[in-house]
């Protein structure tokens, strides 16, 4: 029977959480107030690589309002060692200490924690902690760090090489040797930080009566944090609860277990008082996981018609000082290598990837994980090859994209693409932006001296990765499945509980749409519970564009079995065959009759009005169901981005004039939310393309320690976007959904880079394409300093208004400036 009723899945439902979140009625970790709470301020290392000779906390401990000053020595035996393990051969695990012990490995690493009655007092006292360091040599350049004689960051490891892997198919060298055209480049994106609007924050409280620890955390993965802390602190799950309340953005940076989370948990239990830490922005910029920091040396060979013959790459990831738990420091660079060949037919490939431990903040997952740098390199190579062949960038993509008859297509790294709109996205993006007209407009503008460029970027990603693939890296967690529990309570209200958690994506709305449609409830009857480890036996959280697929799948599976129970109860109560029972709009009815009961009446009859159901039915039909969903493989999400930019050839400012995304996320649950995911992702991708870059000086000092210097685009820099959804049905998962959360960030750096290259007739190999880089590439600066710069200018003259190590006091006549030390 086809259901002609317009479904909730696919409807443009306004986000149910917005009245709460937009009107300031949300509740984030920092909003939680507890009497007697202690507030933590950290003393963070101002050296990148140094031995800690002495820590003197005595003066700080006597400061007003201070309850304790804690160093690594005080934490010995407080928890099991934290190590991200993996079964990858060649992987070397690093131990992540809760506080740095005998050594610091990046500037910003926490060395001591001051606990005081308020954050103000804690910061006052933290200034009085004295730490003596003996600086050690540091290899801050990732390629230098690979050398066998490079200064070793972790003495217990054989080298700084955290992982060394190769993906190969066929004979890439031979294919390149036979290619009509070979193009190559050394592609480098700036190290980026997600810069979520909510900094990290944690509040731990210990109930001494019940011996129960609760951690309120802005994490994306309450389930993973709970399971990890249970191990580290040796607590059973029912005495350890991790709650993620409203969370203001995560973008992957909140998927790892942080040492600050472990610390507040240990100290709340030890001191019997709530312990709270909220990161400030400076701490966020130096301690939250960063990303996109790979050197990709790659070469592409094509035949005279532009067909790809071979691809090879040497990738070095600058992964920072420690492997994040549980993902490891391999998470990003390995994905650069495994996704490099993109949505194209690449017969022969060899990609070697090494992750270098460097004295910088750890890198981790960030929206796109490895694919933004991979797509940047590959899409640039394609345009370079097209330029050499005199071919249009659209045509070289048409020639090489995996075509409809070729799915499932096994990419050279072993990834398998299921059928999705690879070529469809390219064509739709070009149609929407008016590609052919723009080419004419571009030529006319050029004649007037204007520099306008059009950039395309196509990619494919794997989303909703199920248990079959998720086991591959051998992490101690299961990311393949998600579970759900749905119940209709005795008032008839529907509560659906998930192991995923929302950081503002609109999950409360999309999951409510899925549950309501599958169950036959009204949207307003459904309450979504998420982000609480105590609510379900197992769940991990939200990351890797999985929530629609995994949690949406669990919602479907679970709602369907609950619906069976509803039908069974209704068939008794309405005295009709189950096949004749309809469940819609929060009510059950008998088809073709006016016999009908609302969920409220049904619930009363089931739970309260004894005698209405036979005893054996009452015991079986409890109006609750649980379900686990495992997509097993995963599903492909492709897209093409098209950007139109104008570059001022005298000031080197880049303006994005138009931006189009055509993407295939399978069945769209909510077009408003799908568009929003693309918009936000593209904004972050434009940030990577034009603005954002963590700069460390050669000694490892962070120079971009505030939002004055770490430049995140604002609304004024982001164009309005046109988003097209192609909905190729995804038969490999129950909902037919494909992930959409990360794509914007994956495509945008490459599309913008290609557009700039197109506008200026040069090759862009480094992002962000700042005025300084373009000046050196095309302006008079080319003569001044060679064709390109390795990083930003890096000088530290005036103008870096709030750099960590600068003390320009400003105001009237204090002009003294010089390096401060948090501690002497």
């Amino acid at each position, binding site marked *: 029977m086809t259901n002609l009723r317009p479904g909730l899945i696919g409807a443009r439902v306004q986000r149910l959480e917005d009245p709460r979140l937009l009107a300031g009625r949300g509740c984030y970790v920092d909003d939680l107030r507890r009497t007697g709470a202690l507030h933590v301020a950290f003393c963070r290392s101002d050296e990148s690589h140094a031995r800690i000779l002495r820590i003197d906390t005595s003066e700080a401990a006597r400061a007003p309002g201070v309850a304790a000053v804690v160093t690594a020595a005080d934490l010995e035996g407080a928890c099991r060692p934290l190590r991200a393990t993996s079964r990858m051969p060649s992987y070397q695990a690093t131990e992540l200490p809760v506080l740095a012990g005998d050594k610091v490995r990046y500037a910003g690493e926490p060395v001591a924690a001051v606990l005081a009655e308020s954050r103000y007092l804690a910061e006052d006292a933290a200034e009085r902690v004295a730490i003596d360091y003996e600086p050690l040599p540091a290899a801050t350049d990732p390629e230098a760090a690979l050398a066998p004689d490079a200064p070793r960051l972790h003495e217990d490891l054989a080298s700084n090489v955290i992982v060394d892997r190769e993906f190969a198919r066929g004979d890439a060298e031979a294919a390149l040797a036979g290619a009509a055209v070979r193009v190559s480049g050394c592609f480098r994106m700036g190290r980026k930080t997600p810069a979520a609007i909510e900094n990290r924050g944690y509040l731990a409280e210990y109930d001494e009566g019940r011996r129960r620890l609760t951690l309120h955390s802005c994490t994306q993965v309450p389930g993973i944090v709970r399971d990890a802390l249970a191990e580290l602190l040796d607590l059973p799950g029912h005495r350890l609860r991790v709650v993620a309340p409203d969370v203001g953005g995560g973008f992957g940076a909140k998927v790892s277990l942080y040492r600050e989370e472990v610390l507040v948990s240990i100290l709340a239990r030890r001191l019997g008082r709530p312990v709270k830490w909220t990161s400030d922005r400076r701490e966020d910029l130096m301690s939250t996981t960063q990303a996109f920091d790979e050197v990709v040396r790659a070469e592409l060979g094509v035949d005279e018609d532009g067909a790809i013959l071979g691809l090879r790459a040497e990738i070095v990831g600058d992964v920072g000082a420690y492997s994040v738990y549980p993902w490891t420091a391999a998470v990003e660079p390995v994905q650069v290598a495994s996704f490099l060949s993109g949505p194209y037919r690449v017969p022969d490939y060899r990609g070697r990837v090494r992750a270098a431990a460097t004295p910088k903040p750890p890198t981790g997952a960030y929206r796109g994980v490895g694919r933004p740098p991979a797509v940047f390199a590959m899409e640039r190579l394609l345009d370079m090859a097209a330029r050499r062949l005199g071919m249009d960038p659209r045509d070289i993509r048409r020639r090489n994209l995996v075509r409809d008859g070729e799915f499932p297509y096994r990419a050279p790294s072993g990834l398998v693409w299921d059928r999705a709109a690879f070529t469809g996205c390219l064509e739709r993006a070009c149609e929407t932006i008016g590609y052919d007209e723009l080419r004419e407009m571009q030529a006319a503008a050029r004649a007037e001296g204007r520099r306008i460029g059009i950039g395309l970027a196509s990619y494919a990603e794997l989303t909703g990765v199920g248990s079959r693939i998720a086991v591959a890296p051998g992490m101690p967690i299961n990311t393949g499945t998600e579970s759900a529990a749905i119940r209709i309570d005795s008032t008839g209200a529907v509560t659906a509980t998930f192991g995923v958690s929302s950081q503002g994506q609109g999950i409360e709305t999309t999951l409510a749409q899925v549950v309501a449609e599958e169950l036959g409830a009204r949207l307003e009857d459904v309450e979504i519970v998420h982000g609480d480890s105590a609510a379900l036996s197992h769940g991990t959280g939200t990351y890797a564009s999985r929530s629609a697929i995994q949690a949406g799948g669990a919602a479907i599976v679970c709602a369907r079995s609950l619906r069976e129970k509803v039908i069974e109860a209704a068939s008794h109560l309405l005295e009709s065959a189950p096949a004749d029972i309809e469940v819609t709009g929060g009510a059950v009815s008998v088809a073709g009759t006016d016999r009908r009961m609302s969920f409220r009446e049904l619930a009363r009859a089931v739970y309260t009005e004894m005698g209405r159901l036979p005893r054996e039915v009452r015991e079986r039909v409890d109006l609750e169901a649980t379900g686990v969903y495992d997509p097993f493989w995963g599903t492909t999400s492709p897209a093409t981005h098209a950007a139109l930019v104008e570059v001022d050839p005298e000031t080197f400012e880049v303006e994005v004039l138009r931006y189009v995304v055509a993407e295939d996320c399978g069945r769209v649950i909510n077009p408003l939310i799908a568009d929003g995911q693309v918009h936000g992702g593209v904004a972050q991708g434009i940030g990577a393309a034009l603005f954002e870059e963590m700069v460390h000086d050669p000694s490892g000092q962070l120079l971009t320690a505030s939002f004055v210097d770490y430049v995140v685009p*604002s609304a*004024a820099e982001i164009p309005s976007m046109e988003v097209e959804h192609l909905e190729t049905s995804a038969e490999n998962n129950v909902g037919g959904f494909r992930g959409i959360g990360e794509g914007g960030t994956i495509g945008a750096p490459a599309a913008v880079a290609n557009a700039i290259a197109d506008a200026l007739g040069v090759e862009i190999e480094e992002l962000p394409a700042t005025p300084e880089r373009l000046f050196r590439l095309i302006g008079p600066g080319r003569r001044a300093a060679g064709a390109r710069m390795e990083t930003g200018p890096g000088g530290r003259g005036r103008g870096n208004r709030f750099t960590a190590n600068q003390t320009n006091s400003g105001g*009237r006549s204090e002009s003294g400036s010089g390096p401060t030390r948090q501690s002497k």
Partner: protein
Amino acid sequence: MKPPPFDYARADSVDEAVSLLAHHRGGAKLLAGGQSLVPMLNFRLLHPALLVDVNRISGLAGIEERNGALRIGALTRHRQIEVSRAVGDHFPVLRTAVRHVAHLAIRNRGTLGGSLAHADPAAELPMMALLLDAKIEISGPNGPRRLEAREFFRSALTTALDDAEMVTGVELPLLPPATGWGFEEVARRAGDFALAAAAATLTLAAGGKVAEARLAIMGAHEFPLRIAAAEARLAGEAPCSGALGAAAKAAREAVEPDDDLHASADLRRHLVEVLARRALESAARRARELAAQVTGGRAP
């Protein structure tokens, strides 16, 4: 990012503010809009013993036209300058410049006096004070004094103010008729401090020759600069593109920028020339249009 402990006092008059400053000799700081001071406190770059809040001093804010000049009180918010009709009528270049100061929320709080006293080398209002030949009114323990803007800015974040002095206002002499203007800025984002900026005014004499040209730049030197060589070069000349270009080159030669994270000295020097040329070109174009309106005829 919490400020170190400090005492707070609210001054009800300029005299009271000045005497609090004098009493604490160097240990006290005025608090105006707080948009530069409070971030520095939160970064613990400053440890003042006392903050003297000047926000309730009556008569310290306001814009008024008198004696052939526009007087703007020190406590006037950036936003008030931006929306002032008098500013728009007499100094459209100032209105344009102030729109480049930060974001609306910051312009609602930040003050003219605070901006001048803070003397960021890439701040618009100090450059405007210089361009518009502002007289800066100062009060101190020894009474009031006035300084020309060009005597006021000494180096980055450093002014001619004494520890116990405060700015009370500025006076901007009105410009002659047929004065065109130009303002050009490059910043990483809307509202950011500039990598470089240039502002110009150009007054035409009856024959279409330049009666007076002024050119100021910022962001590329320790403090905002008037480019005397460029101004002298243009005086008495027809504002043709060759002359304007040569003046812009003079600006480039006058600045001594540093490298920083966002731009090298080379880029800043380059931008100074480009922006100076563009600012002068707009000023010349507007001056010609104004001259044409005055004579009721065509632009010369």
